[in-house]
């Protein structure tokens, strides 16, 4: 069974995504990393769905894709506004929330 390989692929993608979110300073790249995380989750869902022979996982993955599309839409709009106001997409500049 290829389950292990699928899960390994998912785990690797997840780790890359988390690394990107934590390390990258560019907002667009952070968004892309989030997409990686979501897709790693999708791979896990599909893997288990195939193994259990039920279509639930497939359906759920489709939902995740739809939600991810919406999320990217909102996220990119925010990035665009940020660029318009500050002429930069660097996350280090966004430190007004410092307590």
């Amino acid at each position: 069974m290829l389950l292990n390989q699928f899960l390994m692929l998912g785990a690797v993608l997840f780790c890359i995504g988390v690394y990107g979110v934590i390390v990258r300073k560019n907002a667009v790249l952070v968004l892309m990393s989030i997409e990686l995380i979501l897709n790693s989750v999708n791979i896990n869902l599909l893997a288990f769905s195939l193994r259990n022979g039920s279509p639930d996982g497939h359906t759920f993955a489709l939902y995740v894709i739809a939600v991810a599309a919406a999320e990217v839409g909102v996220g990119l709009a925010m990035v665009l506004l940020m660029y318009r106001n500050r002429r930069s997409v660097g996350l280090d500049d966004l430190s007004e929330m410092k307590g």
Partner: protein
Amino acid sequence: MFSASTEAAEVILKSGWFLENAFIIPIIPAVAFFLIIFFGKKMPMKGSEFGILSMFAALAMSLGAAYQWIQRVNGVSEETYVKPIIRSWTWWQNDGVSLGIGQHIDGLSITILVVVAFISSLVQIYSTEYLHGDRRYTHFFASLTLFSAGMLNMVVAENMIQLILGWELMGLCSFMLIGHWWEEGANSRAALKAFFTTRTGDIGLLVGTSVLFFAANDWTQKTLGVSGFSIRGLSAWALSGDPSSAAITVGAVALFIACIGKSGQFPLHTWLPDAMAGPTPVSSLLHSSTMVVAGVFLVARLYPVFYEGMNIYGNSVNFIVLIGGVTIVIAAALAFVQTDIKKVLAYSTVSQLGYMMMGLGAGAWLPAVFHIFTHAFFKACLFLGAGSISHSASHHSFDMKKDMGGLRKFMPITFSTWIVSTLALCGVFPFSGFFSKDEIIDNVGYAGYNFFMIVGLFGAFLTAAYMTRATYLTFFGEPRGAAAGEHHEDEHDAHASHDDHGHDAHDSHAAHDAHDDHASHGPRESGLIITVPLILLATLALSSGFLNAPAFGEKWENLKKWAEPRAEVVSVTGIAKPAGAHGETRIAAEKADGHHASPCGTETPVGGVCYAPQLKHAPFKWWKAGMSVGIVFLGMILSWLLSVQLYTRKNKKLVGLTERNKVLGAGYSFLANKYYLDTLYEKIIVRSIAHPISRGAYWFNQNVLDGIVNGAGTSTRKTAGWVYRNVDQKLVDGAVNGAGTSAENAGGALQPVQSGKVNQYGALLFGAAAIGALVLVIINF
């Protein structure tokens, strides 16, 4: 006597649309009631058109049903049991007990349906003129229509629960109608009195219905497949020999107490004369065809139950005859001391209801039902006549001594209809009252109650006398007071409780003034809207007696043929078929040998059930009729002579006799105070029951409840003070302050975490998620 020859004759009975759908008749005015309530005020005739149209529709359907019923009866031989048209739907059911609602149409219901619909139609037309411009005109018509709906529903009722529904609907509507002008204290008191007095009797209705249900339900379910509420089931059960004498007697007595209350029998008749506080059309409807005949109708409807329970045709005097006989005399005697024309008529109604009850008690079922029928016409006519007088001649006064007299010249139509109806009420041949009342008296004697036959004749004498007195005071002699054209404001106020427009003075002054104007022109005849109903009713008062006139031989006994239930033994298989199946219904009738030898009511029926006891009919004798008419004329002449001496010649020996002679004076004040029954009820019974209770309740209130409340208040205040000092100030405030301080400290400690760096937040998030996942994994292992 009864041979068990079970030759099952298959008889086909005719039916028709009106008979099968008679249950619609009460629904029409019920729907009209809601139309009037919701849309009445916006309509051109303020809602009265809905009421009148619905009553016309009900009348048309009743007449159609009557025609088809006559066809049905005429289609079969005299010995055949004519099956009533019964339809039933489940109203609600609960744990095996299901209640139906439907119709039970037989000769009795048809008779009463026609009367109720007819009188209601006329009264509604009359009211459009009589209450013209009234403040609550629309609501008056709404109540009037619902009132008729209640009575019609009671008449078609298939079971006791539906009957109670109609019965209570009438109780409610009579309360609303009697208290129509509730701004006057006396009117609302009269409405309350009517309501509470009939309610007192209604306890008997509920008790009786329950007793009969629990006694009969097993038998009716097993034998006929109907519940113990069904009127048909109860009738058959009563005659089946199944009921224990205790159960059926208790049930019948309890139901009869309800009839005493509703039909104004002694000793609960006191509400009826007070009910005159309502508008005259209401009195007319209430006293002729609805409300008060409800009690008589109930006895006639469940006649087998009363027959067995009261032991009618037995050797001893039964409860119904006794109450009926007492009521006839005491009410008639009271009518002599009244000065209010409507109260004379009210006591006359009470007395006539006594006749009906006495007839039912003595086994004279048919004459009693026939008396309901004829009485409705002439009593409605008399009341509407009294209304006509007050409307057009006496400036809204009903006082015969002060404001009437000599009116025959001014009001020829009202006068002639009044005379016809009075003769009918007194029972003069050939007016309708003769054929019904004389038959009752005759049959009471025939059944062996000789004493009560004399009571009946004495009652007829009294009736003739007090009606002659009322007629003399109203229409003969010299005009007095308002009838003579006098117009005095102080009088007006004195009669405000009967004043039709007095209450409109505030908001429709113009209409009021207009009435004052023509009242001061002196008496005159009423308009067509008032006189036409009078003429119609008088015509029927004259002619309706011929519907059942044994004086002219058997061919004239039509109501007996159509309405009297036939006492035949009917096999149960014929009944078990679904009732009300469309088209012809088949029954299997088993004939007893001989026409008058039915075992029903005397023996236990074999091989079937009975729905009605075999009744006896007194053969008509001209000499008996002549004797009673002679007594009536004697009463009239004596009363006339006395009235002339008293009221016109002012004979010094007679006027004021009650003040000079102590014995007569005592008798007069005994009557004038209505036998002190009101005093007994209000001062003694109500006070002796209500006052100790209220005093006890007051003591309990002052000492126990107030003590508890005060104690609770004081201790609450003390507790609250302690709580404030200790809990609120120290504990709660301490906790709040402590929470604030610790939150501040925690916030200071956590401040470095809020770096404002998005990546750091992300890292924290994932770190927390990783720790969470780790914990999950460890727990699941």
